[in-house]
């Protein structure tokens, strides 16, 4: 979004940035590993994950609870407690490396160049301050020379942009005076007030009703079209991903198991875990009397991940390659079509045949 022309003095001090080449992704994460030392043992919450997001594009990260989605996003935002967390790998935002940088540096980017929206809008808002004041403050933190009036104008403008009626009046109200959907709009206004280039939304609609969810997803799409930001949409809901994502990353046990365009991952999925998710999801279309085909067993503990392919205890095809699935971690490799990656020991031919025989006719995979 345009910074107000009238307030050039409000331009924040931008550190010298290595030139980004055109076409370079805005965010690049390489071999990210996040470990927590806990009383029960070491939690390998993220174990070698890589992805990139360009401006104007949306990456959906899906996986069941505990698969490492939130830990990944908190790492990008530099929000982990350094005393309890070990992070390795590379995170580059707009050409700047974040891993290993002083807190100060990362904090400057956060809220200005990258912003976040969490599941629970209440936790992101302070109950004792008016919503307008909170948005204005978020603006002034990164634009210290802007006057209060100017910041107020900017906040009112943002409230209007996210579809809050009578923004001038709503500015002076408190979070509890807003409904759940309205609060999430306020949080979005606050996240976007500094015109971030990267927006990370972690289950932003999970707590909302479907009609309100639809409003918020539409709003994010509209704002993205207008401001050309890169978006990471984290969700356990494949339906949401199918609506908003350009690219999809499927996580299991802290690792990426499949990665590709939304077409590739949802229409021509290659990983047995993705197959399992798709055949588990009930749909509004197709045969309502057909049984769902669940994945057997339960998601793994990240303290004690199964050896080899972490999915092997639940996989119907784990025995296909002798002991390999149990012994050897499959690497993420090209799955055929350009840009489509999968981490599975099955051969491409096997995957094609098994998908056609076992999966293509069940659930939403159909």
């Amino acid at each position: 979004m345009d910074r107000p022309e009238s307030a050039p003095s409000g331009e924040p001090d931008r550190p010298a940035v290595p030139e980004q080449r055109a076409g370079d992704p805005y965010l690049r994460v390489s071999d990210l590993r996040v470990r927590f030392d806990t009383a029960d043992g070491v939690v390998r919450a993220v174990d070698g994950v890589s992805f990139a997001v360009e401006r104007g594009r949306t990456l959906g990260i899906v996986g069941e609870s505990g698969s490492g989605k939130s830990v990944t996003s908190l790492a990008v935002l530099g929000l982990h407690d350094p005393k309890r967390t070990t992070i390795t790998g590379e995170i580059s935002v707009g050409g700047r490396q974040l891993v290993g940088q002083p807190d100060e540096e990362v904090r400057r980017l956060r809220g200005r160049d990258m912003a976040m929206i969490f599941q629970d809008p209440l936790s992101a808002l302070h109950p004792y301050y008016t919503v307008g004041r909170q948005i204005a403050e978020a603006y002034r933190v990164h634009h210290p020379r802007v006057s209060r009036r100017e910041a107020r104008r900017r906040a009112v403008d943002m409230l209007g942009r996210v579809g809050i009626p009578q923004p001038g009046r709503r500015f002076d109200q408190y979070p509890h005076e807003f409904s759940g959907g309205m609060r999430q709009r306020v949080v979005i206004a606050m996240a976007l007030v500094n015109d971030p280039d990267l927006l990370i939304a972690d289950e932003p609609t999970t707590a909302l009703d479907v009609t309100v969810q639809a409003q918020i997803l539409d709003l994010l799409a509209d704002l993205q079209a207008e401001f050309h930001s890169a978006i990471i949409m984290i969700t356990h809901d494949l339906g949401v991903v199918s609506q908003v994502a350009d690219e999809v990353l499927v996580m299991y046990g802290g690792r990426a198991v499949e990665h590709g365009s939304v077409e590739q991952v949802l229409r021509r999925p290659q990983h047995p875990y993705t197959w399992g998710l798709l055949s588990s999801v009930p749909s509004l279309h197709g045969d309502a009397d057909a049984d769902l085909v669940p994945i057997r067993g339960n998601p793994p503990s990240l303290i004690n991940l199964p050896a080899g392919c972490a999915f092997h205890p639940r996989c119907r095809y784990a025995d296909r390659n002798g002991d390999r699935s149990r012994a050897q971690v499959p690497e993420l490799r090209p799955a055929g079509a350009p840009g489509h990656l999968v981490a599975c020991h099955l051969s491409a031919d096997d995957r094609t045949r098994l998908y056609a025989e076992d999966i293509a006719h069940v659930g939403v995979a159909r």
Partner: protein
Amino acid sequence: MSVGDEPLLRVRGLGKHFPVRSGPRGRGLVRAVDGLDFDVRAGETLGLVGESGCGKTTTGRMLVRLLEPTAGSIEFAGRDITHAGRRELRPLRQDLQIIFQDPYASLNPRHTVGRIIAMPLLVNGIDPPGGVKARVRELLELVGLNPEHYNRYPHEFSGGQRQRIGIARALALRPKLIVADEPVSALDVSIQAQVVNLLRDLQRDLGLAFVFIAHDLAVVRHFCQRVAVMYLGRIVEIGDRDDIYERPQHPYTRALLSAVPDVTTLGPAGRIRLAGDVPTPLNPPSGCRFRTRCWKARDICAAEEPPLVPRDGGNQATACHFPESGPAGAGSGPAGAAPAAAGTGASVEEVSR
């Protein structure tokens, strides 16, 4: 209706108003549930769907007598249980059970699984043939748990397994009707599918009737034969599953269905955008409660509450002055009908990316 056709559960005019403080002085009434009529036959599954706060849980809790209704009546197996006390309820307790949403909070952490499942038998003084322990093992097996886990505690189980324990407990007394309040909402999708399949098998094999409360319309479609759609404490539409999903007549049902992000379609296609939020049940709109968000609203919608009446003499009843016709998605939505009243409305957007 012949005698053999008597519904198992017969609900008429059921209401629950909660007194609350509103404003600096004065008290208000939250009309959480406001005049519900529906029947459930033996072995039938009725889904109750609607957005947060529309009164689903309140309804479910009244049905199993965890909440006292403030209006209307509940008949179960021909007996009026609307205000039945503990003692009167005892012989019926067996027949009427509830499963809760939260598999964590609903199990006593200090009791073993065996004790939790045996509790309904013990409380009701029932000694099943073969003994309590044998029956509990049988139940554990029935819901797909290892009978050897009899002596374990709830925290040793995953969310899906805990929900199975809750189901086993509900089945202990061989009930005729189970009220299930969001039984799979807290579960991950792969586990959710396991539990939905389990409930379907049990329902078929044991001929159980269900009132299945959920906000997930796709889950309800896979489980229920009949569906009631609620909005602000009222049923706005009720009918057979295929009628509700393929030929919804109430504008709200259409909007709700169109808002579900379905993984079978890529991109946000043809969604009905509803404006605004659900109004507060403290002061619901006059006439049709959906009128503040309805794109078809006219003067009569504010003046007169539309009754829940069947159309075409069929099974599907719709509370709307201007019901929709035709299949879902076709010619529906605000595209065909310009918003008639100021301040209301929604718009349909055909977005392609």
